[in-house]
């Protein structure tokens, strides 16, 4: 081997040795940074990997915006210190990998000694960190988790709260709506993920109770590229409604391919992603998605104080609208956090947890109250795109518009 290569080798060896030595030192110095000067809030969330699209849409902008708003006021109000303390947000990338999420959660708690933690994206990720945040006593409200399994373990994880609509109520709302519209035969497809399995598991029995026939019932992998065979089969089956418990990637795919194939059931319902602002434009404009229904129901016109202003602030800050489902829930969870800290007067995590568990909080999604660890203010909510706005069509009492039925043909 020539000398140049050996020199390279030597350089590599030296660089690695130096990094190996400096690493423990830098890590050590991190934990020594003064604690009372800032409130450190950590989050390990998906900046890369399949979950990053959802995280980047729904949670990350809200986290950052909230921190900015709080710091613009001087920080969070800590009554015990009689002053406001600024907030620092530490963001790690969990790579959409559960093992990494757990490890980073522990790192934020044990090494970074964060004061508070904000949750990652997606049902599976919330499952992963629930034991961790509970073990070390960090109260967390999950805005992108929806699973009945959590209800079962809720007693074991008192520090964990679910704020998003739960499958049981969503399923019931959807089934009620379909019954009201007179739907008789449906195709039910779902993404092969905890979320898809759970929601389908709840909706299917409800449909059965209402004597609605599920003629097609299939799952598909999360990274599916082409669902046209399945959609063609569904078209041939001539169902009244196509219900898809889908994640953003497949939501977009199904919409696109359904249009291409001329699949036009009377009701088209999709999962996560319908409420995203890009959904309005990506198929050629709002008129194309007229009548499509999706999970969630919130728009800037809902009658909750601060909703419209939040919407406008988000647009101003990020040049894009918040999504019309979990974004609002995320922001609401941050409002609750802020209000709890003010009520408690300090960063006492146990007291904050107890406050969240017992009080009612005014937020952009309405007055939120947790019972048994779950938000009872927002039972099933379904939205439908009508003339460029995502109107609330279920539950019936919360409607901002009547549902359009049947869905108009693809333009």
């Amino acid at each position, binding site marked *: *081997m020539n000398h140049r290569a050996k020199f390279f080798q030597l350089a590599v060896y030296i660089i690695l040795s130096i990094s190996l030595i400096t690493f423990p030192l830098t890590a050590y110095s991190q934990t020594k940074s003064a604690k009372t000067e800032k409130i450190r809030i950590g989050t390990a969330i*998906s*900046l*890369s*990997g*399949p979950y*990053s*699209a959802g995280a*980047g*849409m729904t949670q990350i902008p809200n986290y950052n915006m909230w921190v900015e708003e709080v710091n613009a006021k001087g920080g969070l109000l800590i009554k015990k210190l009689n002053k406001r303390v600024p907030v620092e947000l530490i963001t790690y990338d969990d790579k959409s990998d559960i093992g990494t999420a757990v490890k980073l959660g522990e790192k934020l708690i044990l090494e970074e000694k964060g004061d508070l933690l904000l949750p990652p994206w997606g049902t599976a990720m919330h499952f992963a960190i629930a034991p961790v945040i509970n073990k070390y006593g960090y109260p967390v409200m999950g805005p992108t988790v929806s699973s009945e399994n959590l209800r079962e373990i809720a007693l074991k994880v008192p520090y964990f709260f679910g704020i998003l609509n739960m499958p049981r109520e969503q399923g019931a709302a959807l089934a009620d709506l379909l019954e009201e519209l007179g739907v008789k035969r449906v195709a039910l497809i779902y993404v*092969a993920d905890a979320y898809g399995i759970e929601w389908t598991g709840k909706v299917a029995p409800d449909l059965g109770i209402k004597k609605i026939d599920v003629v097609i019932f*299939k*799952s*598909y*992998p999360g*990274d*599916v*590229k*082409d*669902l*046209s*065979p*399945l959609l*063609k*089969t569904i078209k041939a089956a001539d169902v009244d409604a196509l219900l898809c418990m889908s994640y*953003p*990637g497949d939501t*977009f*795919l199904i919409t*696109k*391919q359904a*249009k*291409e*194939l*001329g699949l036009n059931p009377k009701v088209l319902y999709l999962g996560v992603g319908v409420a995203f602002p890009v959904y309005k434009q*990506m*198929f*050629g404009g709002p008129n194309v998605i007229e009548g499509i229904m999706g999970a969630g129901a919130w728009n800037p016109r809902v009658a909750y104080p601060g909703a419209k202003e939040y919407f406008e602030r988000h647009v101003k800050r990020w040049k894009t609208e918040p999504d019309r489902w979990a974004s609002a829930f995320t922001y609401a969870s941050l409002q609750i956090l802020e209000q709890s800290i003010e009520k408690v007067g300090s960063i006492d995590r146990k007291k904050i947890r107890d406050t969240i568990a017992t009080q009612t909080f005014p937020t952009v999604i309405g007055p939120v109250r947790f019972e048994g660890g779950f938000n009872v203010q927002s039972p099933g909510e379904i939205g439908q795109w009508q003339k460029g706005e995502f109107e609330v069509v279920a539950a019936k009492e919360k409607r901002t518009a009547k549902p359009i039925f049947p869905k108009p043909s693809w333009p």
Partner: protein
Amino acid sequence: MSLTLLLDILIGGLMMGGLYALIAVGLSLQYGVARVLNVSHGEFIMLGAFATYSLYILFGINPLLSLVVTGPLIFIVGFLIHRTLFKRLKRLSPTMDAFEGGSLLASFGLLFIIQNVALLIWGPDVKGYSYLSKTVSFLGALYAANRLVALLFAILIGIIFYYFLKRTRMGKAIRAAAQDVTTAQLMGVNINFVLGLCFGLGALMAGIAGSLTSMMFEITPLIGLPYTIISIIAVVLGGLGNILGSLIGGLILGLIGNIVMYIHPGLSLIAYYIIFLLLLLIKPTGIFGK
């Protein structure tokens, strides 16, 4: 089973198969000739897809036309990578096995690098555009126009490449190198250039496939690896080192995948792996292998 459904499955399968065939030929060039099992092959597909996407969104350039620009670019990138990375590695490796192992690892490194760079440039969100998405009726079934175009394009490229291999001097040189590198060298082939050329052509195939993909599907920086796996399976199916065999391998995989998809969407990948493993156990040299 109605004739329409059968036709539907067949044509749909061939559409994906055409894409797979392109990708498989690309990998086959890289492995069969340059002996690099390039696990970052899919990343070039991804790059081609994003390049086309960016040109369309930013400048409104027709995706098919933009191939004139993106194609040569990706080819050059592939060529340079071979020249700088793999050629050097070849020089340092005492045996062919050593080189294959080392290039496998180096291409893993490339995979990480390219994916991260793409993530930094374009971000992790799903991106897509609409092009020729009108539905057309073909032999009684409905397809998106862009799929038919992609299939035609793949066939065109395939035919051009076939003639290139069989009729041109460079094509002969490539085939000679695929059979036996040392002999080819003895016969006067500028082997370093040919190896680099093959690697570049492999990247080019991937890039073209990527462009076609971006017309039909939404894209993210993560779409590469599944295609790489499919191309490896197709190459093994056709016989390692048999360039045209891998083309057939790709078509077969596309067909099988589509058939399985009608049964259950989640089973296609499992079906591919089962075929792959059985093939390795029964006839590792592939259907057309020597």
